[in-house]
């Protein structure tokens, strides 16, 4: 018994020694001297002009941050800053301020475009209830988006100094929230309104003549116009082109969850600023003509009905079509429940 135990102990000792020898052999440093090339490979590379050139090239880099594609230095932001702060921002002020000035001068010099003849009292349906609600919803959203957008661009130069930090913080946060949530609704409704009014806004031959006569804004001339005159058509197609650019660029900025890059958003922001400032500027003209500038225009969009005299003066071709279709102008009492009525718009 005793000798057996001793025998096992000895075997175990031999095993342990063997194991140690193997381990020692595997951990020993290699006999050959370190290869210079190998060491260079592990050394921190030298930093020279090529390194900085490579940073500029934007290739072959990795970033330790998760999901990041940021190079060491990304100079496009400075370009964006210069364009936004040095060009878009002042140009917008000049455009909007210039338009306001022009409108005030125009109103003072030329004044309101009055009806040339007495109202006949006969009313013609021009805008259905659906169209009016669409128009005023889009108009309200447009104004809300304009004011909040202008606040985002220019507000910091005024309101923080006037009202203090706490008010400003709430005001600008509110602006962003309204802008970001009203924006998509505006975008969808703009598409609806464009589709709804596409047919009456197709360019016609007489539109060219309208332009040549300056739309009859000055003087007593009244160039031919269908349901929509050429000026309204310009506003329509501006909304269809520039307006859609505002919407699309706005979507890129509003939802940063579709993998759009920082460069995409810089471009989108620039487009958004330029196009929306153009729209705001032209919208001032639209608002002027539709309210102060033309007698009887606002009541059309407010009640849906325009006076026969107004229709004859501003949209003579449309008036003729309506008259022909109806045989005679409609009665003076507006029919009840006009949301089911169909406006006549053959042009």
């Amino acid at each position, binding site marked *: 018994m005793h000798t057996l135990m001793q025998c096992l102990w000895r075997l175990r000792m031999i095993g342990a020694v063997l194991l140690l020898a193997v381990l020692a052999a595997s951990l020993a440093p290699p006999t050959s001297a370190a290869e210079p090339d190998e060491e260079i490979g592990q050394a921190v590379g*030298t*930093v020279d002009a090529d390194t900085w050139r490579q940073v500029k090239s934007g290739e072959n880099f990795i970033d330790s941050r998760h999901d990041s594609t940021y190079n060491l230095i990304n100079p496009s*932001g400075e370009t*964006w800053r210069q364009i936004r702060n040095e060009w878009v921002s002042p140009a917008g002020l000049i455009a909007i301020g210039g338009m306001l000035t022009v409108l005030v001068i125009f109103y003072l010099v030329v004044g309101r475009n009055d009806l040339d003849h007495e109202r006949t009292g006969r009313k013609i349906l021009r805008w259905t209830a659906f169209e009016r609600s669409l128009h005023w919803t889009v108009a309200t959203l447009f104004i809300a988006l304009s004011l909040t957008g202008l606040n985002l661009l220019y507000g910091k130069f005024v309101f*923080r100094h006037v009202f203090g*930090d706490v008010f400003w913080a709430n005001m600008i946060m509110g*602006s962003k929230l309204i802008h970001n949530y009203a924006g998509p609704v505006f975008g969808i409704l703009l598409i609806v309104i464009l589709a709804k009014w596409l047919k009456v806004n197709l360019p016609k031959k007489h539109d060219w003549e309208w332009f040549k006569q300056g739309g009859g804004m000055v003087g007593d001339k009244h160039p031919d116009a269908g349901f929509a005159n050429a000026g309204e058509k310009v506003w329509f197609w501006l909304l269809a082109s520039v307006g859609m650019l505002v919407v699309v660029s706005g979507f890129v*900025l509003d939802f940063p*969850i579709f993998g759009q890059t920082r460069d995409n958003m810089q471009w989108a922001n620039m487009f958004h600023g330029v196009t929306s400032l153009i729209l705001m500027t032209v919208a001032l003209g639209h608002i002027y003509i539709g309210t102060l500038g033309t007698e009887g225009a606002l009541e059309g969009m407010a009640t849906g009905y325009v006076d026969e005299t107004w229709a004859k003066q501003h949209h003579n071709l449309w008036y003729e079509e309506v008259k022909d279709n109806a045989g005679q102008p409609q009665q003076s009492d507006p029919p009840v429940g006009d949301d089911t009525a169909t406006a006549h718009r053959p042009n």
Partner: protein
Amino acid sequence: MAQMKFLCDAERCIECNGCVTACKNANETDWGIQRRRVVTLDDGKPSEVSISVACMHCDDAPCMAVCPTDCFYKTDDGIVLHDKDICIGCGYCLYACPFGAPQFPKEEAFGERGKMDKCTFCAGGPAETKEEEYEKYGANRIAEGKLPLCAEMCSTKALLAGDAQTISDIFRQRVVYRGHEDGGWSSVEKAQMSGPDVSANLDEMAYDATRATREG
């Protein structure tokens, strides 16, 4: 007044990401927010170079220039800070920053950005109490007379933080010692990186200004 700056010696950075971790730990930033990052060029090749980068506290900071809320300000030490009570998370500072410093917690609906977060040079930010400051902006080591933890923890002293004059003096000494001919913009002689004496040369290149003489 001091002008606080970061400087990363690319010939010393070994991409250990210690600075990133130190920062995260010192400031306890939100999930997904990593104020400092390490950029590696030519990863895995002999020419590999790494540089640690965060907010560089620019003199003419693009973020300040484009912010619609005007929430940024510069301290007397030249540190760019921002007020999270005023920030609306619009992302403009991110568009403008060359270093990708501003980050946003993505916790709102439709990917709406939260309040921007960025390196504060461990100088905290505007708040009523110390607790609030730490909660919003992280550590205020500057108030305690300490430098940013990322630079303090850098194992190779590649990342330097402090007054621009002081850290550029340190870097200039290193550059001169390494044998750059035109102030760090060119490499040291390529000859040092090849040939039989390479081991000695590599050792020499690892010298820094803290060693008194070349002979060691």
